[in-house]
C-alpha cells in the first residue's frame, strides 16, 4: 500500500473540517492506517485552517512533511499558495477558484496576488495543477456550503479507484436531509475533474 499524503487548506467556515473528516474515513474504509492533524485555534475568527490527512500501510506522524504532499486541495486561492513548500514535482494541486481577501487587502494595505501569479508559482513546483470553480458549481446546485464536497469529488477522481467508498462515507457523514444534495455535489466534482 503506497502512502498518500493530503493537505486541505482554507479559511475558517469553508467546510475543510467536514471534508477532512470524510477523507479520513474514506482512507479507513479503503483499509489504510490513517491519521489526521488539524490546527483550528482561531479558525472561527476568519483565520487560516489546515488539515493534514495521511493514508498508508502504517502511519506514524500525523503531520505531512515539507516537500512530501501528494495532494494539496486549496479551498481558497491564497491558501493554496501558502502550502507551496510542501509540494514536490509529482504533487497534484486542486485549487478552488475563489478568493476571500484577508483584512489587510480589504483595507488597501496589501495586495491579493493575481490568479496567474499563484498559478505560475504552483506550476513551477508541481506539474499537475487543476483549477475548479467549486463555489460556482455549488451555487448552481443551490447551496454554497457544498463546495467542499465538490472539491472532494475532484480529488477522488485524481486519487483514482472506485468512488463507492467515497460516496458511502459522504452519505454517512452529512446530515440526512442533505444527503442527496451532497451526493450530487460529489458527482458534479467528479464530472468537473473529467472535463
Amino acid at each position, binding site marked *: 500500500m503506497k502512502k498518500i499524503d493530503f493537505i486541505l487548506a482554507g479559511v475558517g467556515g469553508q467546510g475543510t473540517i467536514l471534508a477532512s473528516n470524510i477523507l479520513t474515513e474514506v482512507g479507513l474504509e479503503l483499509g489504510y492506517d490513517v491519521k489526521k492533524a488539524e490546527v483550528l485555534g482561531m479558525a472561527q475568527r476568519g483565520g487560516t485552517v489546515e488539515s493534514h490527512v495521511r493514508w498508508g500501510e502504517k502511519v506514524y506522524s500525523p503531520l505531512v512533511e515539507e516537500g512530501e504532499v501528494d495532494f494539496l486541495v486549496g479551498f481558497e486561492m491564497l491558501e493554496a*499558495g501558502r502550502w507551496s513548500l510542501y509540494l514536490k514535482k509529482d504533487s497534484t494541486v486542486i485549487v478552488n477558484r475563489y478568493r476571500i481577501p484577508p483584512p489587510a487587502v480589504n483595507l488597501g494595505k496589501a495586495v491579493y496576488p493575481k490568479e496567474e501569479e499563484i498559478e505560475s508559482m504552483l506550476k513551477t513546483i508541481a506539474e499537475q495543477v487543476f483549477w475548479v470553480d467549486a463555489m460556482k458549481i455549488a451555487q448552481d446546485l443551490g447551496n454554497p456550503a457544498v463546495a467542499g464536497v465538490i472539491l472532494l469529488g475532484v480529488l477522488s477522481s485524481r486519487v483514482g479507484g472506485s468512488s463507492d467508498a467515497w460516496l458511502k462515507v459522504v452519505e454517512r457523514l452529512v446530515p440526512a436531509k442533505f444527503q442527496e444534495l451532497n451526493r450530487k455535489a460529489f458527482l458534479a466534482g467528479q464530472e468537473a475533474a473529467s472535463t
Partner: protein
Amino acid sequence: MKKMMTGNEAIAYGAYLNGVRVGAAYPGTPSTEIMESFATYPGVFSEWAPNEKVALDVGIGAAYAGTRALVAMKHVGVNVAADSLFYAVYTGLKGGLVIVTADDPNMHSSQNEQDNRNYAKFAKIPMLEPSDGEEAKQFVGLALKMSEKFDTPVMLRSVTRLSHSSTPVEISTDEPPPPAEPPLYERNIRKYVMVPANARLRHPIIEARLKELAEYAESLPINRIEPGDDTLGIVAAGAAYQYAREVFPKATFLKLGMVYPLPEKMIREFAAKVKTVLVVEELDPFFEEQIRLMGIEVRGKDIFPTIGELSPSLIRECVAKAGLPVDSPAQSEVAATDASASIELPIRPPMLCPGCGHRGLFHVLREANVVVLGDIGCYTLGAAPPLSALHTCGCMGASIGVAHGVSRAGIKDRFVAVIGDSTFFHAGIHPLINTLYNNSAVTTIITDNRVTAMTGHQQHPGTGITLQEQETEAIDLEQLARGIGFKKVDVCDPYDMEKLSEILEDHLASEQPSVIVAARPCVLYTREKSTPPRVDPEECTDCGACLELGCSPLMQEEDHVSIDPLLCNGCGLCMQVCPVGAITRD
C-alpha cells in the same frame, strides 16, 4: 471495530470505559474537547468549573469519596491549579484521579509554551504521555489503576498534535463497571488534614512512593525498547516519538509511555546497546538532563531547538546538520523554496468577527485615549490593528490587579481594566474585590458576551446552563458587583457607542472603584444577523473612518468604501462612525 477519534475524544472514552464518574474542567485549547466529549457519556457527571483550581478540587473531592475522577486543563491551567495539585500528592486519594495537562508547543493558541513535564518532577507525581489515540484511551485506564495502587493522583500529558489529531481507536464491547454502593466517607485526619505535623509524616511517604514508582516503571510494558539498527538509539515519548519513528523507521528506540519517574535500569541497558543515544523531545531537555545525571552521554538539545514544535522535517534537518546518519527528504525543496519566495502572500490574522460587540467597546476606548490593561479572550483582539486599543495581556485575570498596580504607581494617562465574562468568573473576582478593599480608582469593564467565545463557546457561571445542558442560576454580573459593595456600576450595550462613551467618561471622572458591564451576546454564538447597511458611493468621501473599525466586510474600493453584504452582520457600528452619513440601512 475501530473508530477515528481525536486524542481528546480518546481520553474521554478511556475515562468512561474505566468507570470514571466525575469529570471537571475549565476550557482551554487544546484540552477543551476532553470534557465536552466526556459529558456525552451515560451515567457520568461532568462540569465546567469556574477555573482549573476549582476543577481539580472537585476531582480530588470525588476521589476522596472513592469515585474515579477526571480533571482536564490546558498547560497554563496547571499553574492555576498547582496549589491543589501539590496537596493532593501529599494526601493521596481513595478513588483514582487522572489530571490531564494539554500542552501547546508552538503556542498555536496560548500565551506561553511551558513544558508541563516539569510539574511531574516538581510535584513528585507520576506522569504518562500517550503518542496516539489508542494509547491515550489505554493510558487513562492504566493511570487510574496506578493512582489507586500508589495512592497518588496521576498526570497524563497531551500536546496539541495528540489532542487535535485523529487516529483509529479500538471500540470496546465491554460495558464500564457499574457504580459501587456509596461508601461511608473515610475520616482519616492524619492522612487528609495537611497541618504541618501531619504533612511532615506524609513527605517521607511521597519520597518512598517515587522510588517504588521508578521501580514499577522498569517493568511497565508502556516503557519498552524497540530493537533495530544500533547506530542510533532514540529516546522519545508522545507526539515526538511519532515524528522520530517517521524519520528513523529502522533505529533502536526507547519508547517511554511513563515520562516520570524514569526507569533508570532500562535506560542503562538501552544505552549499552547503541552507539549514540539521541533524545528527541519537544521543549525542555527533560529526559536529557535526567539521563545525563545517570552519567550517560546523550545528544539532544545540542541538536534540537528548545523552542516550538518538532516535526519530521525539522528532526531530519537538525540530525543531518549534526552529522548523524539520516535519510534526506525524498524531494529537493530548492524549486519550492525559490518559487514560494517569488510572490508575497498576505497573512490572514484572526480578527474580531463582523458584529462583535467588543469592536464597539474598543472603538470607544481608543477614542477616549485610555491605557487598557487587558486580559485573555476574543477581546484581546482589540490589540490588533487598526483598533490597537489594548495594551497588556498576560494571563487569565491579570487585568484588574495590573490596573490597580498601575493606579498606585501613578501615571499621567487615564486607564481602565478590560476583562471577559468567562475570564472574570475564572480569576477576576478577587482582584475586583481588591480594587474596592484598597480603594483604587480603577474602572473595570467586563465584556459580557454571555459565553466563553475564544475557546469555542462553552457555558460559564453567567450563562444559566451547565456543561451537561441543565438549566441553572445565571450569576448576574451587575448584582455581583453591587453585592460586593460597588456603588458605581453601569450596564451598557457596546453597540451604542455614544452612551458607552458617556458612561466611560463619567466613571473615569468619578475617581472611585467602579464597574461597567458591556453587555452584547456573541453573534457567532447566537447566529443573529440584521440587515446589512449600504454605502452610498456618491456620499462617501473615502475618509477611512469606518475602516478604522477593522471590520472585514468593509472594503476599500477605487475611491470609496463598500460593504460585502454576505459577510456583514448588520451591527451598524460603521453607520455610527461615518462623519457624512454615507452609510445607511433601508
